[in-house]
C-alpha cells in the first residue's frame, strides 16, 4: 500500500524542527531514516498530518569521541556506524550489532536516533544503549534534557520522549579497562528483526546482559557472572509468542543464545 496523504516539511535546523513539532504536536511525526516509519505509513498503522523531515539537519549527524564519551548524533546512519573506526575501538558492542541491523540498503538510510526513538522491542540498538548505560540527549522548547537509557524505553514503541521533543544524540561512556562485550541474535533471515537477541557487557566482577525480542522493551539483567545471568532467565524473562516463535520457543532460544554470547564474553 501507499502512504496516506500528509504535508511535508524539511527544517534546516534543530530550532526550526522544534518549532514545527511544537506547532503541530500530536499531528506531527519526525521523519528520520524512515526505514520503519514509512512501512508504518504504507500499512496505514500511522497517519500523521505532518511529517517533519530532519534529514537535512547536518548538526544531528556524526560520531564524536571526547575524553569521557562517544556521542552518536541521532541522524547518524547505520552504515556510518558500521564503518566507523571510533565505534569499533570504543564501542565494540555496537560494532558487533551493526551487521545484524537489517540489510545494507536499509543501513544506508536508517538512523541511530530513529531506531532508538521508535522503541521497537526487537531492535538491536536500544539493547546496546541499555547494555552500555548510554544517556539520551533530547531537545524541546524549554531546552535540552538527558535521559538514562534505563529510563528511556517505556514499552512497546513507547519511550520517554514527550510531544514536541526531538532526540538529538546518545552519549556512551568510553569502554573501561577490563570490560568486554559480546553480541548475538537469532532471526529467521539474516537482517530480519530478532526472534531473540542478547547484548552483553561485563568484567570479571559483573555482567550485564540485555535481552531483546523477548518482551515489550529490552530487558537488562545483571549478575556477578555469566552463571548468575543464566540462572535468572526462567524467572526474569517473560517472552510472548508471536508469528515467528511461541513463548516457550523464545525462552529456549534465549537460553541457548545467552549461553553462547556469555561464553564468548568470558572467553
Amino acid at each position, binding site marked *: 500500500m501507499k502512504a496516506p*496523504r500528509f504535508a*511535508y*516539511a524539511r527544517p534546516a535546523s534543530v530550532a526550526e524542527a522544534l518549532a514545527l513539532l511544537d506547532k*503541530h504536536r500530536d499531528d506531527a511525526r519526525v521523519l528520520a531514516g524512515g526505514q520503519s516509519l514509512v512501512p508504518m505509513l*504504507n500499512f496505514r498503522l500511522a497517519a500523521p498530518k*505532518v511529517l517533519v523531515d530532519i534529514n537535512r539537519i547536518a548538526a544531528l549527524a556524526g560520531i564524536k569521541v571526547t575524553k569521557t564519551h562517544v556521542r552518536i548524533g541521532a541522524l547518524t546512519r547505520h552504515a556510518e556506524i558500521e564503518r566507523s573506526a571510533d565505534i569499533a575501538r570504543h564501542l565494540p558492542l555496537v560494532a558487533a550489532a551493526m551487521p545484524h541491523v537489517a540489510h545494507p540498503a536499509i543501513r544506508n538510510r536508517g538512523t541511530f536516533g530513529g531506531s532508538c526513538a521508535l522503541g521497537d522491542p526487537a531492535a538491536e540498538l536500544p539493547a546496546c544503549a541499555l547494555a552500555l548505560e548510554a544517556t539520551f540527549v533530547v531537545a524541546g522548547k524549554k531546552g535540552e534534557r538527558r535521559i538514562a537509557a534505563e529510563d528511556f524505553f517505556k514499552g512497546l514503541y513507547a519511550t520517554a520522549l514527550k510531544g514536541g521533543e526531538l532526540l538529538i544524540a546518545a552519549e556512551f561512556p568510553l569502554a573501561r579497562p577490563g570490560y568486554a562485550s559480546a553480541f548475538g541474535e537469532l532471526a529467521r533471515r539474516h537482517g530480519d528483526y530478532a526472534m531473540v537477541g542478547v547484548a552483553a557487557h561485563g568484567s570479571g566482577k559483573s555482567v550485564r546482559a540485555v535481552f531483546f525480542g523477548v518482551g515489550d522493551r529490552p530487558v537488562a539483567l545483571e549478575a556477578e557472572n555469566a552463571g548468575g545471568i543464566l540462572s535468572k532467565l526462567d524467572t526474569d524473562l517473560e517472552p510472548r509468542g508471536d508469528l515467528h516463535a511461541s513463548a516457550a520457543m523464545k525462552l529456549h532460544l534465549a537460553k541457548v543464545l545467552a549461553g553462547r554470547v556469555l561464553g564468548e564474553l568470558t572467553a
Partner: protein
Amino acid sequence: MNAPLETVEIEATVNGERVKRSVPARQNLADFLRHELELTGTHVGCEHGVCGACTVRVDGEIVRGCLMFAAQADGCKVDTIEGLSDSREIEELQSAFVLTNALQCGFCTPGVLMAAQALLRDLPNPSREQIREYLSGNYCRCTGYQAIVDAIEAVAKTRQARGNR
C-alpha cells in the same frame, strides 16, 4: 523549506539527467521513477522494505525506493537500473546472470543487480557467505539464489584477475 506542503517542487539528477517536477508529498521514490519518469526497471514488490525489488542508488548508496519519498530526493543524484545498464557499469554482471541462469522471471533482478554492484564496490573479493549475507535484503522466488551467488562470485573473480573493480 519550512511550511508543511502536500505538493513539493523537486529537482534531481536521475541517471545523469536533470529533472524538475512537482510531486505529491506522499509519493515514494520508486513510484516517482516509474510513473513520472517512466523508468519502470525499478520494480515495486512489497512496499515495506522487505523484498528489495525497488533498490536504487541515491547519492551513490543503495536504498529502498519504497522507503524514501520523492520529495526527499530533492537535490540528490539518483541512479536506477536503466542508468547502470546504459552506462555499461554492470555489463559483466548482466552477462554473468545470463550465463549462469541467475534469473527466471526477472522481477527481482534489477534490485539484485543494484545490490550486487554495491557489494562488489564495498567487498571486491567476497566469500559466498558474504554474498549471501549482503543479498539477504533481496528476495528471489525463482532461483533459490544459488545461481545468483555463482554469477556474482564469477564477476568478482574476473574483476580480481583483471586487477581492477
